[in-house]
């Protein structure tokens, strides 16, 4: 079957995969349009790696359709391998090799693509070209892994949790690189369990949990879908009566959340003064007050009652 449209870079339909006692992927479908960055967002164990590795031709699916660049793994594996750029979740490259040697190795596997030195420039690792891989920082190793994914000049890039375990600065640097790849017109499938990463990088997101996609859309659409604009967190000296707060105009919900209270509201400029007034009536001192705009994290909490990262 030829693909529906040449603009579809990846089509996944009713995909299923079970390991002995877990249904890792449970009938999901999604499509990647050429030129976009699509995110699979979900907590650990959601089935993101299983999904992306099936798309990469590394894991066989139990059932379902996977069409990559209009091709199928069963018949076109050789061609597909040339055209995909892959970064696995937990590869440790050979420590004894230098950065440049590693890229020469990977470059030799592909028909065409940038020179190793050019690929290094793409990930801003030029000055480390003669350093041993074992001596690189976590962020540098991850950038090298990205360069290895780019040496074949891929039409589609798979990035599985590219910033997991990195410090904030290294993450930001990686985000900048991925933004640059997007500007270069690359198509990217990215998995992550960081909501801010998905929000920053992805045009469209599918939220995964327990092998299923539980919501999908642009970050804006997803956040709007829960009808909460802002989150107000506060704590007080003494016990609060939550009932009058719950009935204030613009308040969706308020509940205790581990040592403080979390209030979901539509408008900050009316709700915060109302809250302060109400606490004054109850003769309670406000000891802490924080607000933030609703995020994908709040979407996940609203959908599942759990947080993305169980910390």
């Amino acid at each position: 079957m030829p693909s529906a449209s040449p603009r579809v870079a990846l089509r996944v339909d009713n995909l299923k995969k079970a390991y002995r006692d877990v249904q890792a992927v449970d009938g999901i479908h999604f499509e990647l349009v050429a030129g976009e960055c699509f995110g699979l967002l979900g907590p650990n164990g959601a089935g993101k790696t299983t999904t992306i590795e099936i798309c990469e031709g590394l894991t066989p699916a139990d059932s379902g359709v996977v069409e990559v660049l209009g091709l199928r793994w069963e018949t076109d594996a050789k061609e597909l391998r040339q055209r995909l750029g892959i970064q696995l979740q937990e590869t440790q490259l050979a420590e004894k090799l230098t950065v440049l040697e590693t890229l020469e190795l990977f470059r030799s596997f592909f028909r065409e693509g940038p020179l190793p030195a050019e690929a290094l420039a793409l990930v801003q690792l030029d000055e480390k070209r003669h350093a041993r891989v074992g001596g690189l920082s976590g962020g540098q190793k991850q950038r090298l892994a990205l360069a290895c994914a780019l040496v074949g000049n891929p039409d589609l890039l798979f990035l599985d949790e590219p910033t997991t375990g990195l410090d904030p600065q290294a993450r930001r640097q990686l985000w900048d690189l991925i933004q640059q790849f997007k500007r270069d017109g690359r198509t990217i499938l990215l998995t992550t369990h960081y909501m801010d990463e998905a929000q920053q990088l992805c045009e469209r997101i599918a939220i995964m949990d327990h092998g299923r996609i539980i919501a999908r859309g642009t970050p804006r659409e997803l956040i709007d879908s829960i009808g909460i604009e802002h989150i107000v967190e506060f704590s007080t000296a003494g016990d609060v009566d939550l009932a009058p707060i719950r009935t204030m105009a613009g308040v969706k919900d308020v509940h205790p959340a581990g040592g403080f209270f979390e209030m979901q509201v539509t408008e900050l400029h009316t709700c915060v003064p109302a809250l302060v007034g109400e606490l004054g009536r109850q003769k309670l001192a406000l000891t802490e007050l924080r607000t933030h705009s609703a995020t994908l994290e709040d979407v996940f909490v609203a959908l599942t009652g759990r947080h993305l990262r169980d910390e």
Partner: protein
Amino acid sequence: MSDGFRSHPLVQLTLLRLREFLREPEAVFWALIFPILLAGGLGIAFRGEAPEVVRVAVTDDAIAATLRQDPVLDVVAMTPDEAARALRSGRILLVVEPGADGGAAYRYDDTNPEARAARAAANQALQVASGRVDPVRVDDVITRETGARYIDFLIPGLVGMGIMGNAIWGLGFSIVDARRRKLMKRIIATPMPRHLFLGSFLAWRVLLLPVEVGVPVLFGRVAFDVPVRGGMIDLALLAMLGSMTFSAIGLLIASRAKTIEAVSGLMNFVMMPMWILSGVFFSADRFPDAVQPLIRALPLSALIDAIRASMLQGITLVALWPQVLTMIAWLVVSFIAAMWLFRWR
């Protein structure tokens, strides 16, 4: 074009193997330096110089005086207590004590050939000094050939053991390490044909073989004049066949293991019996006849027997067909089984 050659995946994968090996000083030490130290140490300990004088302990002054007339014997006078201690600790192998009827008694361990030789020498000296006349005249014709000393026996054994160890350890550790780091999975996610990944291990073994075999053979030649009667070409062919055979066995051992611990255990389990049985340090002929067919069927026995026969006796490869066939059989069976079982991720 040299650049085109360098950018071939097999060349790059082989470079990966070589770089990982050469940049690991411990690996280089165990593969190349250690066999020389071992051969040197053992060669010195068992050097085939003029026959040493036989040391015997004597607890009786009269017998001591009689035995001292024979220059082959180094007679040490001891009290019975001292003699017993020296015997237990192995410093001397024979004690001569006063015996019944004014004769002598020999105290020694009859399972030790050197002790039996010492007894024979002491007895000869004692009987001759007491007036025995031998009825048959004998003459000793001494020949000392290279090829018959312990070091001559040892060097082929070490060469064979080195080929086995380097191939099995080399493949076992590298493959499992690549699997454990998910590096293997990453590499097979590229268009590289999988057989090149395995081929790079063979290329790596073959490239290092001249050094691995050449170093101990050359050392034996220079330091102890150990012969290579069958010629370097036959030796190289045998080494190559041996290395491929043990590479296939290493591939089989590493085909499914996921941790270094698991593969180490398996490798030792496979190699240990061969270290003992295959005649590395002493002749396998010492084991009972019943197990000889089993020992001959071991790949290391075949390799070492063939190298020894070629180096020391100059026997041709054609005449060594049983050993060659044994290795080929191991090579083919292990390789097929490894391909059947191999786990790429």
